């Protein structure tokens, strides 16, 4: 099978590895780099669990080939927290508001919302619901996820003020 050697930055660390050209970025992150925080659900772009940030923009890791991440910077859920001791405000708010139940959708929710709150720091609940409309939570815990996002947005606005 055709493979290519790729170099990319993931969560601030430079990696170089061999990737089959048909391998998507999600499998590369999990299988080759061992970063299993990114979850793979549907693998055809519908469930949103595998969402990661590519050069700071939320993308589906199942719809980008690993070889397309050559020389790019990827941030996964493992890279959201500012330090090993502190949580990202979204992560802290998800904990406080029971925003995770089984946790499968959480990495995709967090990465999607990270970009969303950068673009829209003072959202309405309705805007949050639309923002996560491409992220399926099979526990249907959307109310707590929305509540957590509103709290995180408040905390981030206060920290920036």
């Amino acid at each position, binding site marked *: *099978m*055709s493979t*290519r050697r790729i170099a990319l930055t993931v969560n601030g660390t430079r990696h170089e590895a061999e990737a089959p*050209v*048909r391998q*998507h970025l999600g*499998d590369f992150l999990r299988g080759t780099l061992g970063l299993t925080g990114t979850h793979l659900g*549907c*693998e*055809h*772009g*519908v469930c*949103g669990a595998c*969402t990661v940030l*590519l050069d700071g*923009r*939320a*993308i*589906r890791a*199942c*719809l*980008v*080939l690993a*070889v*397309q991440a*050559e020389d790019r910077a990827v941030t996964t859920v493992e890279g959201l927290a500012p330090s090993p001791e502190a949580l990202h405000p979204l992560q802290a708010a998800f904990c406080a508001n029971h925003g995770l139940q089984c946790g499968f959708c959480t990495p995709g929710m967090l990465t*999607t919302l990270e*970009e*969303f709150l950068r673009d829209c720091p003072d959202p309405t609940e309705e805007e949050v*619901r*639309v*923002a996560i*409309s*491409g*992220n399926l939570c099979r526990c249907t815990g959307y109310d707590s996820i929305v509540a957590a996002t509103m709290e995180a947005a408040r905390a981030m606005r206060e920290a920036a003020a």
Partner: protein
Amino acid sequence: MKPPPFHYHAPRTEAEALALLAELAPEEGRILAGGQSLVPAMALRVARPSHLIDINGLPGLDRLEVGDGQLRVGPLVRHAMIRRESVPGPLGALLDKVRGHIAHLPIRTRGTVCGSLANADPASEWCLVAATLGGAMLARSMRGDRMIAAEDFFQGFMTTALEPDELLAGLHLPVLPEGTRWGFHEFSRRAGDYAQAASLAVLEMRAGTIAAARIGIGAVEDRPRRLPEAEALLTNRAPTADLLRQAAAEARATLLPTDDDPTRPALAETVIRRALADAAGIELP
């Protein structure tokens, strides 16, 4: 859910990409742009290209330019790059509204406008915009460039006038004059889902009457198109609630839906009526 094996090419120049496409098109070689339709189709094994020619590394293809009364959208312009502030006048506001209806945030950051046009899904919002506004597609190959008008470009369900060796190198849309009124409505079961029916209406008003009307319908027939009967009904008339209702009903009567979903004609009529009402600034449920 893994794509079948293929050969991957990452050309560094557009000329190299076109040469690869000319060489590999006969062997099912395909352009890979945003990949938000092609890659899932490959994962589901309904598309099996033997070669992918990835244009994401090509410089200068992500330009959004305005000049000579036209907006030119390059082949690597992502949905998310279409913003009100990047396009002047009513066209900017129109495209901004439409963008919000395209899939979800992480799809819009990656998927491209030209990719949607080349994919030609009947429910695609950008295809509806191109068909309604009279857009033109720039097709490029080793053989040269040619412009294809929207009405010739969309040829049926996911079928376009592009030849296998042609890259869709741009969408050209006419910039709308100040004062142009427009409305866009779509119905989908969930936010970001494929539309069940979508309509775009554009009205040019003069002294309280409709001087020219463009009404488009998408997601109902095998391709998006304008609705000339309804447009004719509105032309040179003052917009009233009754007239708009009548135009939407007229439009419904001319539709040939591709399926026998009994709700579709009613949904089509509703989105047309709402798009017209928004364009005319009339409250109409």
